[in-house]
């Protein structure tokens, strides 16, 4: 055999190199880190930055100081003016009139006025537009009337009280009509707002950059000073792997990260070089929705027994370790807190056993209770994430075994998990929901939402439906609170769910990063943030 001539090898190598060079476009290096640049690592990339199209929280984490709303809601939950100077709710609850600020321009110079706001809301309900969370936030929106250049009346088919809270939430933040009309798809990566920061560039799967808007001459509602943001630039890096994310914070590659994994939390909390900030999420806590239509959970005594039997402290001690608080009700404590809710179901296995006995389930030979030859079995629907089922499912399993209930975990991929929930096929899933208004309970419990939205308890209860409808109509905050408190008490009394853990939004920053503030949604607003040298 003849050796292969050198020129053949050389030619082959050249061809490989040429093909490679042709296929590889030049890639820009990541932006240099100047003095005024804050780099924050997020756990995921947003599907879009268009506030009206996104179904995802990560969008609003990024744009919370880019696009602004008519009203603002801080961590105390109070509504204050933002782009609107004042607002009036009509007596019949079917319209809200906003007086707008006159000194606002979008980042592209487009004037901010009643026409611009109308354009934004009409865009969301346009059947040709695929809205994210924004569509539900507008409820029974019937259109907007421009009364004069800076006065807008927003109309509804039926009274829709959650609107005031929605209008202060990122989903109804406002973008430049001109930019939407003229830039086409660019709104997905560079929404043009009015806030202290403006989006500069977006590199898919890598980072998004926003820079200070020099023309910002107002006082942001979370700030006590007037004028543009202090930081020059904020870079949001997408770092899905939690271990890598923490390492970038420790090495200084990022100065802040979101979603600190529980196992790294003690280390960061002990180290004076870092500061951990934990914020309660508004909405529905991590919760087990009990399917009330499927035996044995069609018996309220069994459902109550399950509530007494689940050891929530074990969840906090093993899985959450400082990233969550005990949950008591279908809404998180920051939404609605009341001693009556907290006392509903203390951990009491003896009471659970007594209730099960009362329901006719007698202890069996293998430790599992039985009735008329039937074992007490419950199928918990869980998402298989690749590394096994949700750890909360296993904790539920071991808690309930102690009182004689055999929990089977149906661990499966997300699509069939959803399908089982819509069909009420299992004894219910563990889930959570972000919502800024107690009206979030509507999608969880209203009878119209079985098979359609998140009513995976499959409950149809006329009294509960009535309360949820009242909550949508009632404009007075105190009366609304009473209505939703009654709804929560009813849900607890009927034991429609097992509230497990109020999860916290956990951020960590290097110590020199100061002045990060958060809105009610637990999203950071950054115009006062600085990096101390």
């Amino acid at each position, binding site marked *: 055999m003849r050796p292969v001539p050198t020129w053949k090898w050389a030619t082959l190598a050249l061809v490989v190199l040429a093909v490679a060079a042709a296929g590889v476009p030049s890639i820009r290096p990541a932006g240099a880190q100047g003095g005024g640049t804050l780099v924050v690592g997020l756990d995921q*990339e947003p599907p*879009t930055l268009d506030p009206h199209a996104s179904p995802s929280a990560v969008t609003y984490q990024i744009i919370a100081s880019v696009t602004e709303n008519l009203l603002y809601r801080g961590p105390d939950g109070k509504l204050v003016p933002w782009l609107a100077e004042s607002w009036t709710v009509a007596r019949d609850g079917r319209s809200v009139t906003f007086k707008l600020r006159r000194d606002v321009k979008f980042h592209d110079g487009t004037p901010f006025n009643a026409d611009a706001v109308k354009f934004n809301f009409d865009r969301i309900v346009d059947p040709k537009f695929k809205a994210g969370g924004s569509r539900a936030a507008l409820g029974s929106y019937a259109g907007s009337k421009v009364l004069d250049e800076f006065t807008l009346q927003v109309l509804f088919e039926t009274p829709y009280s959650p609107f005031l809270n929605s209008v202060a939430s990122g989903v109804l933040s406002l973008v430049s009509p001109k930019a939407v009309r003229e830039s086409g798809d660019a709104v997905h990566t560079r929404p043009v707002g009015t806030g202290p920061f403006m989006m500069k560039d977006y590199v898919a799967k890598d980072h998004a950059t926003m820079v200070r808007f020099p023309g910002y001459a107002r006082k942001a509602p979370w700030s006590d000073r007037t004028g543009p943001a202090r930081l020059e630039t904020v870079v949001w890096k997408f770092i899905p792997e939690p271990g890598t994310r923490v390492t970038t914070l*420790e090495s200084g590659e990022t100065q802040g990260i979101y979603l600190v994994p529980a196992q790294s939390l003690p280390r960061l909390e002990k180290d004076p070089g870092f500061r951990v900030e934990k914020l309660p999420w508004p909405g529905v806590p991590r919760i087990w929705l009990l399917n009330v239509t499927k035996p044995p959970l069609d018996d309220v005594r069994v459902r109550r027994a399950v509530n007494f039997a689940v050891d929530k402290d074990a969840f906090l001690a093993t899985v959450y370790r400082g990233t969550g608080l005990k949950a008591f009700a279908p809404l998180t404590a920051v939404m609605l807190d009341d001693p009556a809710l907290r006392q509903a179901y203390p951990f009491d296995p003896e009471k659970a056993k007594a209730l099960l006995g009362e329901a006719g389930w007698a202890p069996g030979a293998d430790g599992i209770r039985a009735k008329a030859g039937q074992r007490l079995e419950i199928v918990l629907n869980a998402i298989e994430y690749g590394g096994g089922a949700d750890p909360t499912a296993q904790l539920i399993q071991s808690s309930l075994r102690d009182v004689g209930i055999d929990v089977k975990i149906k661990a499966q991929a997300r699509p069939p998990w959803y399908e089982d929930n819509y069909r009420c096929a299992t004894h219910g899933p563990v889930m959570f929901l972000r919502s800024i208004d107690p009206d979030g309970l509507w999608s969880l419990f209203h009878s119209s939402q079985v098979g359609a939205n998140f009513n995976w308890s499959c409950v149809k209860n006329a009294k509960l439906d009535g309360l949820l409808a009242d909550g949508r109509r009632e404009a007075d905050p105190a009366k609304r609170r009473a209505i939703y408190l009654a709804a929560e008490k009813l849900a607890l009394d009927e034991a429609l769910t097992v509230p497990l853990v109020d999860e916290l939004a956990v951020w960590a920053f290097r110590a020199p990063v100061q002045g990060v503030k958060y809105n009610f949604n637990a999203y950071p607003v950054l115009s006062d943030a600085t990096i101390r040298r």
Partner: protein
Amino acid sequence: MLTYVGRRILAVVPVLFGVTLAVFSMLFLVPGDPVKIMLAEFVTTPDQIAQMRAQLHLDEPVIEQYGRFVANALRGDLGVSIRSRRPVAAEIAENIGSTGLLALASMMVAIGLGVPLGLLAALGRNSWLDVAAMVVALLGVAMPSFWLGFLLIFVFSLHLGWLPATGGGDLPHLVMPAVALGMIAAAIIARLTRSSMLEVLGQDYVRTARAKGLGGASVIVRHALRNALIPVVTVFGLQFGNLLAGAVIVETVFSRPGLGRLIVGGILAKDFPLVQGTVLFVAAAYVLINVVVDVAYAYVDPRIRIG
């Protein structure tokens, strides 16, 4: 040579047909209504669900759907991503550069590390050098790339601070992912080079070259190594597929943009068109690269096309 190339290209057609069929059936193999699953994250009206079904042509007979899928794919139209609402082809184009660069760099690591290791092991057969080189190769095969990735980040980013842990782009961002990804291929190539080299060193023509009085280095490089590397070319092609699969993990660990993360993101977001389009593209790329490798193989070793 031309006939051989033609034959190889013709043989690709049924393979690609099978690939399109497999990718297309994905939508029907997942339990449940695909449209409801895809839109589960969004608040939707029945109208929007119907609109989506029409947009994806799910209301047509399956055969027609498949025909449309293949015809569109041939024209380079892979559909529109549900999550980002951009054409899948554009998403792929945006990410291919980064993954291509990573694959190339890790292949360079694989060859640059694997060939010398294998060569050293073969020349010092049964010596401590051989044992050491093969232990390194064994470690390379045994270490999962995500673990090696974390180890590299731990040492070079956190403790030494030499290299950035995340991001795409220039050389410093490329080094650790390329090593993490190329290590397994390097180990396989090292073992292959060793055995292939040992075989060639026993051949008559090597003995003849030595008998002619050629020096040791010249015999090894010009006569032995050049022929010993021929099987390595084939492995190169096969390993390329593994590199694409490994990119899914390595790109996630190092937060690098690329096709791997595109696919993972698509799967998590239940974005069927994106997953279908990207998987089809990667499968086709894999098939074509293997054709190129086969042709290159025939080019350097004439016995292939004769046989």
